[in-house]
């Protein structure tokens, strides 16, 4: 069971990305999604029954201890009840992604976690600033496998090159992919990464 953690600040496009990846992969994979709140995922019953998707809600709790334990228990239950090939996890926007990855592997629930962090290109100035959410966003970006620079269709190309440069400097070892769920840019690459294919 592969776990794909989709993290990023509020409004960065996590839910849209998950839904898009689910649509692309559900004919090949048995997929489950774990979210903060089912109401927010916006998946209707028709899609759910047609795609065979399983959605589980993650309970609350202290972000440094209880939330992680709740996530491990939820994934263990999914493994038993549903046997998914992959689980998309959308943790709370303030989750510590590095702790999530480490704990899921250490607890034995999975051997493989792919962490994708989304950064909204149209608000990069705000999201990467010294004050505001910058510390949170930078920390998430510094500890992930893939950085998706999302909503690039909203940003002029010359500005985008500066954004990519700044983002790349935060985590040079992460795979960086500019994406747009509106135009489809970059989504095939993300799909391939989710499936574990080399880029």
């Amino acid at each position, binding site marked *: 069971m592969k776990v794909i953690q989709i993290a990023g*600040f509020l409004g960065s496009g996590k839910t849209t990305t998950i839904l898009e990846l689910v649509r692309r992969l559900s004919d090949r994979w048995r997929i489950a999604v774990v979210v903060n709140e089912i109401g927010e995922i916006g998946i209707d019953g028709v899609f759910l029954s047609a795609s065979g998707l399983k959605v589980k809600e993650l*309970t609350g709790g202290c972000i440094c201890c*209880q939330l992680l*334990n709740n996530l491990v228990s939820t994934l263990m239950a999914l493994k038993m009840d549903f046997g998914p090939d992959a689980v998309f996890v959308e943790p709370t926007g303030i989750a*510590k992604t590095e702790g999530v990855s480490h704990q899921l592997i250490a607890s034995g629930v999975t051997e493989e976690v792919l962490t994708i962090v989304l950064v909204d290109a149209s608000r990069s100035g705000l999201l990467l600033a010294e004050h505001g959410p910058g510390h949170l966003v930078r920390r998430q970006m510094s500890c992930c496998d893939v950085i998706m620079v999302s909503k690039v269709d909203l940003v002029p190309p010359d500005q985008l090159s500066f954004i990519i440069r700044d983002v790349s400097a935060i985590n040079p070892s992460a795979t960086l992919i500019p994406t747009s769920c509106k135009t489809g840019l970059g989504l095939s690459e993300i799909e391939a990464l989710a499936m574990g294919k080399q880029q």
Partner: protein
Amino acid sequence: MTHDFKASMERVAACLAGEIPDRVPFIALADEPIGARVAGVHIQELFAMGAKKMAEATLQTYEVMGLDMNICNLVTFPFMGSAYESHAIAKVSGKPGLFVWKDYATPYIKEGKIAETEKDILNMGTPDHLKDDMWKKQLDAMAIVKEKTGITQNLIMSLTWSQVLTLRGAQAYIDTIQNPDLLLKLCEKIYASQWDYYQAFCKVLGKPTYVINAQYSFNRECLSFESAWKFEGAFIARFCKETGLPLVHHNCGYDPYWDELMDKMTEVGVVNAAISESHPLDLDYWVRFQKKYPTIVITGGSLFVHGELELGTAEDVEERVRQNIVKLASKGRYMTCPICCMPWRIPLSNYLAARDATIKYGKYPIKDTGQVPGSRIFPTTLGYKKEKAKL
């Protein structure tokens, strides 16, 4: 009851006063998950059964776990305080129905819904903690525990960021730049509610001797120090100065601004009494911290709930506790404590191993007896970049 509460209280009091106790105290944030395991009923049931049952479950947990102090006071009191506090605020602000009970786990409130709009913030009410059903039960239960055992109950506040995040959600991070005045209004509303809780606490239980604040924002992965001070630090400092209470800090983040915060609090006249079961997990960091701030009590160190407590054997736990005691306890002002709560997925036997190791290695004078045979030493970096000590 066979637990020697008097001995436990004296041990903890001696440690806080900077004296050498008979041995290192073993304390914990024994909240809902452990309480449910010990009492055999989940938290919603405990509340339904009332203050007497809540107190009983708490005392049972003391007995079974051998705690010298339950930092949370009650097994029904989540350390953050957020869910019940936010729920109380929600009820007086016309937004009930957001509270979610969870069997055998901390209840929570749907994040970001109570202070979703500017109007929500401006119209936010202040609960009466003596009349709010859940808070009245908590206060009554604490009074029962105090009456039966003499244990001083801790004043635990959530000023402000844990409440901010529960009420406003991640939007609060944007507010620090785009709506700072509105965010400060929210912080003032939180302060008013917490002040009401403080007054209710004093009325029922008497004035406390220190305040414990569950801080969230003073982390490098959270906010800049300046923003953290503006929206959280200044409020807890104000509280400490208005009440004259020394401050015990708790922080759930992985990379706290400890030295900056200690210095800033001292600068504004707040007494830093202790740091309570917080990161980083690097023992050498805490050794240097103790040298720099010798009067500040440390509880915790590197006994993390996601390390050997969850994934290791009793010998691994024993070794971790031994290391912590050898490095941090020799001059007193140290208590063994898991970081941070006592959640599920941890075998009870490992919690008890931590208690037993504290008793075994914690008698004064502290001796270094060498690594526990058969034990492993777990990494404390959680797979992320090792924190750089600023000392």
